[in-house]
């Protein structure tokens, strides 16, 4: 749990801003929100080959290293397989077994891995941290990234070398040598866990830890280096899967009816509600210092609900929870890919593989939250790959 103490300035009570109605995607959804450096599309650390880095960026922390306490920070646990590309090594593991895999890793110890799907997300988290430190130099309310891997500690050296190479500011590691990482996730008070292994993600969700499975895509649109953008599906991600159950069991009409009848009843919370909450708390820190307009964190709701009808319940629920979301896009069933391509989030959470794949096809990094009724209907589930 993230406990934060904030200056209670300008805390808006859950009014949803920038309500967007998009019956069809046409790319004009920016509206009044000013563009500027959010779309700085230059070098972004998205290379498929490791760069030859000569010098290291100087740490912006004076007086030695500064590590937040886990209970104060927003802890993001990332698996090595999503932070970096490790397909080659996975192949070795599966075809030749664990001993050969470890030998291979040690042999290639000084070759850094290439960035994986979670890499831009992590870079963006660090950018936010930089801004937070500028404004609140003594605060521990920061993002804290922990590398959690099933690997044996032999491989640790290669991972640490890679992190140095890419100039990532990750200092906390958990190399569990094959033991389940779930106990450690709890010990670190993890707010979000990203892994390539759907089983581990499910285990984490069952323990109440927000988690999602990430996949490598070949196409990757460039994303902002200075503004962290996180997009969420609504049902079964931020909210419970209650409404989806109705939809799947009884069809669209029944779904609308149910939503209308229950408009004033709050939806139950979903697995990623807590994470959105954590993001919101950090956002308020920026608002408190007058940085509402250029806040380096931006959140999006991208839902198949439609604004005029079923969307109302979603908005009311968010408001009642005291959660702000910067942009809400009600697609009324339209495909999400094109909209996401316009938003360019660093990560998009959805409970349905269909949408995850659709997003990936258009170059958005999408993460699957294996929660709720939709899992029974996931026909195109990717199988988890070994370790």
């Amino acid at each position, binding site marked *: 749990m993230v406990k934060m103490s904030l200056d209670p300035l300008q805390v808006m009570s859950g009014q949803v801003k920038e309500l967007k109605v998009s019956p069809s995607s046409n790319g004009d959804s920016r509206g009044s929100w000013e563009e500027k450096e959010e779309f700085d599309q230059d070098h972004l650390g998205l290379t498929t080959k490791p760069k030859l880095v000569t010098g290291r960026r100087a740490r912006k922390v004076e007086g030695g290293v500064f590590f937040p306490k*886990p209970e104060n920070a927003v802890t993001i646990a990332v698996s090595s397989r999503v932070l970096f590309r490790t397909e080659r090594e996975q192949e070795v593991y599966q075809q030749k077994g664990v001993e050969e895999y*470890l030998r291979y890793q040690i042999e290639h110890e000084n070759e850094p891995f290439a960035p994986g799907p979670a890499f831009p997300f992590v870079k963006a988290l660090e950018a936010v941290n930089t801004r937070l430190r500028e404004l609140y130099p003594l605060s521990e309310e920061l993002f804290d990234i922990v590398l959690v891997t099933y690997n*044996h*500690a*032999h491989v640790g050296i290669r991972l640490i070398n890679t992190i140095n190479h890419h100039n990532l500011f990750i*200092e906390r590691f958990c190399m569990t*040598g094959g033991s389940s990482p779930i106990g*450690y996730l709890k010990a670190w008070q993890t707010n979000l866990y990203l892994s390539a292994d759907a089983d581990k993600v499910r285990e984490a969700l069952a323990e109440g830890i927000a988690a999602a499975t990430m996949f490598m895509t070949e196409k990757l649109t460039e994303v902002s280096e200075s503004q962290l953008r996180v997009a969420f599906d609504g049902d079964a991600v931020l909210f419970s899967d209650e409404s989806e159950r109705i939809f799947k069991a009884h069809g669209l009409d029944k779904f609308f009816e149910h939503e209308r009848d229950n408009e004033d009843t709050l939806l139950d919370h979903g697995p990623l509600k807590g994470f959105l909450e954590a993001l919101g708390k950090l956002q308020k820190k920026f608002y408190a210092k007058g940085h509402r307009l250029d806040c380096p964190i931006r959140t999006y709701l991208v839902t198949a609900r439609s604004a005029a009808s079923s969307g109302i319940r979603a908005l009311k629920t968010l408001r009642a929870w005291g959660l702000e979301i910067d942009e809400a896009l009600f697609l009324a069933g339209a495909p999400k890919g094109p909209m996401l391509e316009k938003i360019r989030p660093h990560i998009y959470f959805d409970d349905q593989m269909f949408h995850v794949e659709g997003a990936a096809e258009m170059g958005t990094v999408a993460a699957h939250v294996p929660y709720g009724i939709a899992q029974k209907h996931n026909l195109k589930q990717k199988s988890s790959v070994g370790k």
Partner: protein
Amino acid sequence: MVSTIQNTDVKQKDADRALVVAVTSRAVFESGADGDDVYGMGVAFPLLQALQRVNKRLLEENPAESLLFDVVVITTDSQQQQQSSRIISSTRHYGNLTLTSSSSSSTRHYGNLTLTISSSSTRHYGNLTLTLSSIIHYSNLTLTISSSTRHYGNLTLTLSSSSTRHYGNLTLTISSSSTRHYGNLTLTISSSTRHYGNLTLTISSIIHYSNLTLTISSSTRHYGNLTLTISSTRHYGNLTLTISSTRHYGLEVSRFCFSSEEDFVESLQKNNVQLFLSTDSNEAPQASQKGVLSALLDRQEAPSEQLRVMFCGDDVNRPDAGPMPASRQAAQNFSAQLGEMRQRFSMSDSPLRIVLVTSHGGRESCGALRTLRSHGVNVDEAYCLAGAPRSPILSVVRPHFLLSDGFSGLED
């Protein structure tokens, strides 16, 4: 005046190659009532059992293995020093009692099978495992286990049968004069495709037996592991059980050192002890100052069966400021030998696990990993805390003890 006694029940280890671990008697045993001739199991018991398991697996991999744990029980104060006979008999007392009766070739049924285990022990068994399996049904199966005045460590009863017929009457009585509880009592009855006739299960623990008798034909003194096999190609009418002991272990302690607070450190040095384990926070630093690697033992919630050694890597990479202190050298030697032992096993399914924890970040810990690797220690798990508190990680890893340069303990 230190006296060192060898335990003749246990095969002595190769002095040059074995990894000598000394544990204080107060850590191994818990004092019970004074009248008892045997102690209770102490804080270090799970650790000793884990060490024994590693030895057992090492010998399975290579029967001629000489790199084994060599356990020494040492007393560190004069009061304990006086208790030598009690310590020795306690050591011999504990072990595993296993009884197996199987009748896989029997094509007929048992008439009555009566199994009686009773014990002259006034203390508990380490583990009591009883397995009965048969492919034909029992008509009457009566099982009576009665014994000790204290609790069992683990009491496991398994009755299984691929019988397609049912048990006639299955009566299971476990009673004990114990005024305490059983450690773990596991009862599994599985099998038959039909129902049991009458199944009566009674566990009672209220009455006090005065005499309990266990007859073992080869030894009238101590017992440790007991293996019994009964096989039959015919049916039994009445089965009477005779137990004959073929070997016994007790705790795998090779030596006892009876020293006092003044001379125990000297005793450690004379016995070439490479690791000293104590529950006393004064004793450990004393030994460490004289160059003996020491660690503090603490009671554990749910000790694992796998031996888990945790290295605290904060000092591992310290640049040498001068001649290496004796304790640092001792730590290096111990870890190198432990590393060698670890390599006898595969990545998964090892009875020994090496864990590194550092309070630094990943960058500095890289050095610790490399240093350990250069000493032949391949670490299984590594946690770089970068300033986060250690106790949550400790409660997940549950190491048996924590080592750093010279002295360290399980405290945060």
